[in-house]
């Protein structure tokens, strides 16, 4: 239900409509795209036989989001390059995990690959539902290592999509969580973007004025593994918490309690009252309306708050890294959508799927869905370190606001942490139990300690089976 993590359907739809309108109204605008579509040279530079799975047809499940829509637009290029037919199915983020799992567990091989939640790789591999990809990366007939340059993909995301050092998914798009703040309000009061969690609260306090519908801070508060359990892990880790004590999952350590108390306190004192029901689109909307002074969420939410049709805060936005916690660490999300290969496919289909994945994750396609993209929605979640540093990318992201690329890139380089959330096959149940307990604390139903003790008991029961 609930796990919408990513640009809304509405946003995607708008972008799609805008794109369609632009193409229809100004045919000349679509021409360069068409010309580019024929240019398969950059792909043919790879020393592999792109047509080795010709005639195959594969289905790909993605979520309805601008960054996948851009990829879908380029699908004819892939088909021309490989002779493999692509069929995309858009599944809302709340359902894609279940739909994929249903397909994988029943071995129907409906989806050759799907946009996968990195936290699900442990359960996928425990059931041997997906292929280990080292075999594909090391096979010279399938991958031109120099051309594909797997190590150029951001390390945090590569690690997030690997289990025991083996890659099971290739990241396509991802995000880091950053502070997004109202530069104008901060400047007017002489505030600086927070360097520590304490400063974050001090800033929030200075701005909060409920009588004038102004709130200093907003963080995702809705229950869900992808909502409150997306924000809390960063706080928990920067309070010095670690998920495992030996091989046991411990979620009610003193650091965990302190982190949850901080979270409850921050939202109770400085956030809009409804924030406990909010996911990121609600927060971005409130920020766009000028009622929130600062929020911490995915850098890709910039596309919502800089939408000139909806945003009242254009040109007033600044970005900074996550504040440091008491143990001096900043911890950002390592969220990404990667593509695994369904193990129930035939050998030839697997090869076709790998060709699709390496096409989608290649530097060229990443650029073509971002700054080279003909439509207005340029992707900001590129998977490669070299592309993040490209001047063309900086150019395309100019409108996002102050310090956008810098904040995101420094976070990517320094603040990512594979142990951000507990990676284990039982994550779906663990994430759910944590989300439920965190919410109980956020709405004041239970004290932080009591809520986490309950989560611990629940998790122990789950792990026992």
């Amino acid at each position, binding site marked *: *239900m*609930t796990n919408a993590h990513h640009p809304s359907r509405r946003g995607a739809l708008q972008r799609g409509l805008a794109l369609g309108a632009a193409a229809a109204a100004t045919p000349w605008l679509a021409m360069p795209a068409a010309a580019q579509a024929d240019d398969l040279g950059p792909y043919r530079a790879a020393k592999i036989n792109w047509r080795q799975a010709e005639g195959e047809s594969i289905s790909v499940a993605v979520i309805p989001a601008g960054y996948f829509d851009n990829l879908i637009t380029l699908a004819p290029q892939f088909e021309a390059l490989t002779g493999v037919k692509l069929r995309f199915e858009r599944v809302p983020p709340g359902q894609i995990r*279940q739909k994929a*799992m249903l397909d994988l*567990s029943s071995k129907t091989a409906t989806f050759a690959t799907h946009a996968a939640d990195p936290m699900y790789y442990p*359960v996928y591999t*425990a*059931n041997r539902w997906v292929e280990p990809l080292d075999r594909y990366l090391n096979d010279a007939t399938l991958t031109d290592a120099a051309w594909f340059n797997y190590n150029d993909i951001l390390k945090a995301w590569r690690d997030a999509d690997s289990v025991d050092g083996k890659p099971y998914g290739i990241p396509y798009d991802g995000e880091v969580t950053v502070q997004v703040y109202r530069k104008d309000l901060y400047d007017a009061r002489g505030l600086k973007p927070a360097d520590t969690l304490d400063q974050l609260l001090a800033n929030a306090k200075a701005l909060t004025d409920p009588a004038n519908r102004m709130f200093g801070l907003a963080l995702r508060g809705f*229950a*869900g593994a992808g909502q409150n359990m997306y924000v809390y892990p960063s706080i928990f880790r920067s309070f010095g918490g670690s998920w495992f004590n030996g091989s046991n999952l411990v979620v009610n350590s003193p650091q965990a309690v302190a982190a949850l108390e901080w979270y409850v306190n921050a939202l109770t004192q400085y956030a809009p*009252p*409804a924030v*406990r*029901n909010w996911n990121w689109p609600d927060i971005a909307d409130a920020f766009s309306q000028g009622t929130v002074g600062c929020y911490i969420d995915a850098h890709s939410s910039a596309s919502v708050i800089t939408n000139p049709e909806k945003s009242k805060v254009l040109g007033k936005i600044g970005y900074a890294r996550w504040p440091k916690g008491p143990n001096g660490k900043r911890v950002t999300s390592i969220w990404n959508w990667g593509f695994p290969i369904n193990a129930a496919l035939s050998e030839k289909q697997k090869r076709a799927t790998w060709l699709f994945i390496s096409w989608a994750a290649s530097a060229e396609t990443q650029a073509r869905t971002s700054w080279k993209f003909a439509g207005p929605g340029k992707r900001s979640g590129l998977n490669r370190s070299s592309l993040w540093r490209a001047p063309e990318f900086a150019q395309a992201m100019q409108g996002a606001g102050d310090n956008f690329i810098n904040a995101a890139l420094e976070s990517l380089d320094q603040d990512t942490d594979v142990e951000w959330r507990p990676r284990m*096959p*039982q*994550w*779906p*149940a663990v994430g*759910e139990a944590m989300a*439920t*307990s965190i*919410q*109980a604390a*956020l*709405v004041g*139903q*239970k004290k932080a300690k009591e809520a986490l003790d309950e989560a611990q008991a*629940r998790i122990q*029961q*789950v*792990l026992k*089976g």
Partner: protein
Amino acid sequence: MPGPSSSFAQRERRFALALLAPALLLLLLITTAPLVYLLWASVQRLDMSMPWLSGFAGAANYVKMGGDPRFWNSLTLTVIYTGSTVVLQVLVGLALALLVLQIPKGQGLFRIAAILPIVLAPVVVGLFWRTLVLAPDFGLVDLVTRALGLGSHNWLGDPQLALISVIAIHTWQWTPFAFLVLLATLATLPPDVFEAARLDRAGAWQRFRYITLPLIRPAIVMVIILRTMTALSAFAAIFAATGGGPGSSTEILNLYAYRTSFTELNIGYGASLATVLLALTLAVSFFLFKRRRGRE
């Protein structure tokens, strides 16, 4: 000659069976097979997040419920939810029906209006209440409470208010059913009995208590049975409005079974929870049907 004729009858019967077979088979396939699978899964250890533990579990899943606080919580909520929605539906539905019965003209209009919530899909109802009626700040209910000086509330975010809210949603959607059935029954009551009572100087309450109520009792019991069965298996509206939250404060048994199976991936335990819900629904309906027969 009985031989040929009986064999003719036999052939007829066989032919009829052959005609029926495809439909029967299909029915078996889509109703009985999933049920058998559910019962089978409920005695298995089938946890997709721990596939290495899979195997026959016997009654272990059922035994586990005894020590599972979330199960007891969801069972209690199911009882509260079912009890309160059914009582409210019958009371409000009956009151409305009695009221509308007094209106000489335009009853048809009320009937049409009453149909509307019933024909809406529960998911739509849940989302509609969540976004338009109960949302803080701009929801309909919030506008009213603020205008009355009762302040703004986070209707679906507060544990107690959320439970009251989902009960209100279900009652809103299904009261019209009780209303329509009772209105139709009331309209068929013989007027002469009431006239006789009036001549005997029976008061309005006495007429209602000793004449109306006994006469419409079968209809009320029927409404209770049907509504109870729906309330026990309610799912979509709550799922859309709160998802069982906040915390587990609106997590009725059905939602708990769903979350266990499809979010936590413990198919075996989820199946046993669903089986308990099935048994509960059957037992309650059986009991109600029995009472209905017993008194008549």
